[in-house]
């Protein structure tokens, strides 16, 4: 049995009367690539935002590397309108801000690229290294952490070389072609030294060739940084190619779990997502 890196228990996110994610239970084993798929509006990105601390869940628990990083139960007004399951399973509230969770070793990218557009490619990665800084404000201001600063710069340069962006070091992030911006966003996430990488539609807007490159890229960084990967994706080919396990969401509910083959042949999935079965 592999070690479980990320686990959610009965994770539910409700906005007003809408239950965006309902009773999500996932287990992500170490070193695997796990995918979360589903039609538009199924609640995939919401699930990501809850896991990374962007939203406080309405109910349920998120466990990362054995530590509870988020837990909640319906309270106050939500008690009355709660529409999910297991309303009284949890009793505590644990809230962590996204920056804390990132420092615990979980990094993410965004569906709509969120680079620091006006800064250079190098600065984008260097900034992500800031979360691992040891020097305090005064030491950093007076350059008493020279060795640390140098190692931050060296590591950033090294990382950009690994992902093949070394010739763009001093270019503005916004001037990169689309595919490379995606790659830079992944590099920036890697700079925070994560053990779990969450990719939100990394292949969105890519052509088949770029998608293929991305698949091998994800696999190569997974190996070289010994990562566990959790991704949301629409490109079926990519998902089927690289994922070890797939969760399928529809209207917030998990409708199927399994390997690519199992999911592909699941009638509920075909109905909800892959379209009408061919005769």
């Amino acid at each position: 049995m592999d070690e479980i890196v990320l686990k959610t228990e009965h994770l539910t996110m409700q906005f007003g009367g809408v239950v965006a994610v309902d009773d999500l239970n996932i287990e992500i084993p170490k070193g695997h690539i796990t995918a979360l798929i589903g039609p538009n509006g199924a609640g995939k990105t919401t699930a990501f935002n809850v896991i990374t601390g962007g939203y406080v869940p309405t109910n349920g628990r998120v466990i990362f590397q054995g530590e509870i990083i988020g837990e909640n139960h319906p309270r106050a007004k939500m008690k009355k309108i709660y529409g999910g399951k297991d309303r009284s399973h949890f009793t505590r509230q644990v809230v962590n801000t996204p920056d804390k969770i990132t420092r615990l070793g979980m990094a993410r990218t965004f569906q709509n690229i969120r680079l620091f557009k006006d800064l250079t490619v190098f600065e984008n990665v260097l900034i992500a290294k800031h979360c691992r800084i040891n020097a305090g404000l005064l030491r950093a201001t007076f350059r008493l952490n020279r060795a640390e600063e140098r190692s931050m710069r060296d590591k950033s340069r090294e990382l950009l070389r690994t992902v093949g962006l070394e010739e763009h070091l001093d270019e503005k992030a916004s001037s990169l072609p689309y595919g490379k911006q995606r790659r830079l966003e992944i590099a920036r996430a890697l700079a925070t030294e994560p053990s779990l990488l969450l990719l939100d539609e990394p292949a969105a807007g890519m052509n088949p060739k770029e998608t293929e490159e991305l698949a091998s890229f994800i696999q190569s960084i997974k190996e070289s940084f010994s990562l566990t990967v959790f991704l949301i994706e629409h490109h079926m080919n990519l998902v089927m190619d690289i994922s070890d396990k797939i969760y399928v969401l529809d209207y917030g509910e998990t409708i199927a779990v399994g390997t690519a083959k199992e999911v592909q042949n699941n009638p509920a999935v075909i109905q909800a997502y892959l379209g009408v079965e061919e005769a």
Partner: protein
Amino acid sequence: MHTRRNTILTIISAALLVGLLYWLHFNRTGNGMLISILQKSAILALVAVSMNLLNGFTGLFSLGQAGFMSIGAYVTAILLIPVSSLEGVYYMSGVHPSIRVFKVFLGSLPPWFQSLYPFFALILGASIAAIIAAIVGVAVLRLKSDYLAIATLGLSEIIRAIFSSPQLDGVTNGSYGLNKIPGFPKMFGGLVPSLVTPFVISAICIMLIVMLIRSSYGRAFLAIREDEIAAEAMGISLFKHKSVSFIISSFFSALAGGLLAMYMRSIEAKTFSIALTYDILLIVVIGGIGSVTGSVLASFLVTASKEWWLRFFDQPLDLFGWQVPLFKTGFRMVIFSILLMVVVLIYRRGLMGTNEFSWDRILGRFKRRKNAKGGA
């Protein structure tokens, strides 16, 4: 490639600047206007840079500068007014006895302390402002953009109202303000004459801010400016970094406020009204939001044109016996406003944008012009 040349150019211009200041020190008579404008510019440059740290580099639109300046100015003034002048200053309601006792006690301390005391006063004023910023920041920094601006604006007004309230008559002299504030002290045992002091203090402070901006923490500020959500996802604590930026900005604003008190020799709560914040915002915008050298440059240009270069518009002008209309008191500000509009229209992102001054850029411009001429 040109680093050596650039260093030499920088050293030469710094030396020229220092030379000019010392020359002014020895030729004070007749240059009063120039001295006072340069001093005011240096002080406003420090406020503008500290405002830029918050508004331009961290992306927090705050309008509380005048409030923090008033804290620095009042603390410095109250601490520095000499015992012998107390009666004259607090002529309306008398001074609070504890202030008098404190000042008499100070007078008994050794001379080395007396010479350092003005700097302690400045730093104490700045520290008090920083502490207030830290406390207020917990509540205010949850707000974003316009709402933060309104909250800080309110804070600035509250501080002003407190200083001018009759309950504080014995300390701040209420709405009468404080005067007989000693001028700039000498530094380093007279090595730096009092005339040069504001420039030295301002330069040191701006340098500290620049060093902060260039450190890893400064890069984190930039990240917050660019995209808060992405910055937070990269492990940057928004609250911590916003607070640090707010506190440091307030610290240096208040320090500049203390310098302003020494410069003006008399202050009242009205000095630190919202209009002062707008003046500084103007400097920041004209210089370029996110450019330190832009702020410094703009503070000199704005102050000089407002108070010196455009003076002649305020005097009646005779052209060959024809009295030009419009040339009377106040016309200067009309011209100044028109100039501002022109500058903003031409330089959409301020004089410097988000760039910093560099010799390469300046020399590059010369070269291009030469080449253009040669080609034509």
